[in-house]
């Protein structure tokens, strides 16, 4: 197979300080806050109210919409509040606050599902609450059920983990290798996809070695080391590198015959089918210049971010910026009370020097943003138009193709907020389309 690679990309410092940190297990926090939207699609409605007792693994939020997944309680305890809170962005989301009783009693509904057909498999996946654990948060049962005319010939397993700092997928590969392979086999069996390709960046040689050994007994799963280049782990870039196919604008991977799943997601499939315990915990990499002891921690979903940092040993310096996710695409948090959610794979605390937002200077037209953009865009031009409020010409610039990887703004010598401008442009076009 000829690997094409992709155009552009940047080499931020890898900072994989926690590679050898085996996952520590954090206990039960003081409280959990569980938002009713942790996925792409329709938000869930709260199924419990203040004062109810809940058990671990119990469904506390659900929706009738197809593109949605149920949300489960990660602790047993009492619901102390059901209220709207701002989690990220500016739109409030209903959150269920639970005071754990420390007992971790498991709900009666938690039992291994019976899977004997594609339909029962997809139903089980939905019931597990699984959404893309790589950070995108797309409901997995929807992803695994593409339209009938889409001929999927390749399942791609994303172990690239191209963002700096994050090693949680790497630890998944090292600690849960068997589950990953089992999960892949389950998915291949019930979706009928003939083969799977596991892609891992070559800065993780031990994981590649371990995975290669684990797939020796299989016939249709292969492991591939990929050149370390951000954003190799972006879905479209991964598909291009492993298969040479480019996902057309506005289309999905299924339109080029591929499905992409994160390694942790596919390992969870295997574990869920075995135990029936839904998605209630997440491995999170804690790192950053303010963090005393970087480490990988398995956290109960709903644990406030501040408690995770405290468990890891706290800060060596006052954090100036807290990021949920990686430094290239993560979300900067306004408070440390925001909880760990299904799509959280890292928590970074940066000190003043690293967290300070640099001042924007004038564009010198150096062209670096154009040469690093993996989606062949012209970020400097889009930035210019957005800053001048010329949104009407914007659709000629393919703005919606942007995957918001941040390569352009990362590389800009003038420190221009290119990614932010492109996001504003996309928002303007979406609102124009709604009218």
């Amino acid at each position, binding site marked *: 197979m000829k690997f094409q690679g992709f155009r552009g990309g*940047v080499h*931020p*410092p890898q900072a994989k300080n926690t590679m050898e940190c085996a996952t520590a297990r954090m206990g039960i926090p003081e409280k959990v806050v569980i938002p009713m939207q942790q996925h792409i699609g329709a938000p869930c409605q709260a199924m419990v109210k203040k004062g109810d007792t809940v058990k671990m693994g119990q469904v506390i939020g659900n929706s009738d919409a197809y593109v949605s997944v149920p949300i489960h309680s990660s602790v047993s305890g009492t619901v102390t509040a059901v209220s709207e809170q701002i989690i990220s962005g500016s739109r409030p989301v209903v959150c269920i606050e639970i005071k754990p009783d420390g007992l971790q009693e498991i709900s009666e509904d938690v039992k291994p599902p019976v899977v004997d057909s594609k339909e029962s498999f997809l139903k089980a996946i939905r019931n597990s609450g699984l959404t893309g654990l790589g950070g995108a948060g797309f409901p997995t049962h929807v992803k695994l059920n593409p339209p009938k005319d889409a001929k999927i010939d390749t399942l791609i397993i994303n172990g690239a983990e191209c963002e*700096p700092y994050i090693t949680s997928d790497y630890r998944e590969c090292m600690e849960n290798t068997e589950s990953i392979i089992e999960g892949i086999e389950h998915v291949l069996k019930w979706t009928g996809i003939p083969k799977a390709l596991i892609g891992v960046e070559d800065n993780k040689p031990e994981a590649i070695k371990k995975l290669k050994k684990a797939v020796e007994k299989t016939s249709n799963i292969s492991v591939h080391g990929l050149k370390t280049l951000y954003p190799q782990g972006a879905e*479209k870039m991964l598909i291009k590198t492993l298969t040479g196919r*480019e*996902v*057309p*604008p506005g*289309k999905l991977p299924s339109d080029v015959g591929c499905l992409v799943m994160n390694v942790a997601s596919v390992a969870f499939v295997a574990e869920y089918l075995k135990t029936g315990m839904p998605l209630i915990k997440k491995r999170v990499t804690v790192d950053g210049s303010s963090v005393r002891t970087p480490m990988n921690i398995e956290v109960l979903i709903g644990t406030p971010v501040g408690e995770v940092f405290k468990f890891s040993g706290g800060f060596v310096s*006052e*954090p*100036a*910026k*807290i990021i949920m*996710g990686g*430094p*290239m695409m993560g*979300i*900067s*948090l*306004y*408070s440390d009370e925001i909880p760990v959610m299904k799509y959280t794979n890292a928590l970074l605390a*940066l000190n003043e020097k*690293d*967290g*300070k*937002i*640099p001042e924007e*200077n*004038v*564009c*010198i*037209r*150096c*062209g*670096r943003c*154009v*040469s690093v953009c*993996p*989606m*062949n*865009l*012209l970020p*400097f031009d889009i930035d210019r138009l957005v800053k001048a409020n010329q949104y009407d010409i914007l659709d000629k610039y*393919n703005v919606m*193709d942007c995957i*918001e990887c*941040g390569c352009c*703004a*990362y*590389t*800009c*010598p*003038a*420190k221009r*907020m290119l*990614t*932010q401008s492109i*996001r504003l442009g996309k928002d303007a076009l979406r609102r124009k389309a709604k009218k």
Partner: protein
Amino acid sequence: MENMLYVSSSPHIRSEVTTQRLMLDVIIALIPAAFAGIYFFGLRAALLIAVTVISSVVFEYLIRKMLKRNTTIGDLSAVVTGLILALNLPSTLPVWMAVVGSFFAIVIVKQLFGGLGYNFVNPALAARAFLIVSYGARMTSWTPPLTVANDIDALSYATPLGALKEGGQLPNLLDMFIGNIGGSLGETSALALIIGGIYLLARGVITWHIPVIYIGTVGLLAWIMGPYGIFTGNPLFHILAGGLMLGAIFMATDYTTSPMTKKGVVIYAIGCGVLTMLFRMYTNMPEGVSYAILLMNVSVPIIDRCTKPARFGGKAHV
């Protein structure tokens, strides 16, 4: 947690490259050529360089103040423009003419159009063209380098291209490479310029495309357009002569006045090469680099428009 947190759009890390660092790297890369100018043309060269650089910075500071805009001399781009302009001047130029050149480059071509990033042609090159038009005789009164001055009548001395045009004796290639020839302060020593060019490549300030393609095109055309028929030309002579090295490494590579796309850059560099040779061979000007680059500078917007990258996943890819 007590303190406030920064909240901003991703990405939350940036590369270490800054505009100021890029400009500083260009200044460092030009130091060999500046020293070569002083070595070959004496302390007067040092005076000219100092005056041009200082007047450039002063003019930028004053005009920004007058236009009620922020001070930008800290980004070092005025220093770069002053230095490049100085290296384009003959060592005998009256100092006040150099100051006029600085004024034209910084105030007219750069700041009145919006400042850094908005100039539509290379300011130093435009100033050189302005000075040639305004003070033609003084701008072309070349003297021999100090290394050969004792043997020659010091009042006037032809540059290699000048000698080619007039039918005089051509210097040997080694002298042209080291800088034992007449010419402007920075253009004579190809060796010093190449050292600077390698520094710029190593620091990632420029890529190889513009210098190599520009110089390569000139070499190829020089060989083809030979004096005794096709393929009889001497490519090395034309590569080492005149302002080609200085222009290809330091002026055609200016970010603001070169294309933003890979394909565009190739077209631009070839265009510079073709125009340079056409001017050298078919006009009565001995040198063509300045006007070639200026003409390609103004073509950049249309080149950019025609070379937009293909859409990801677009029709070409199935």
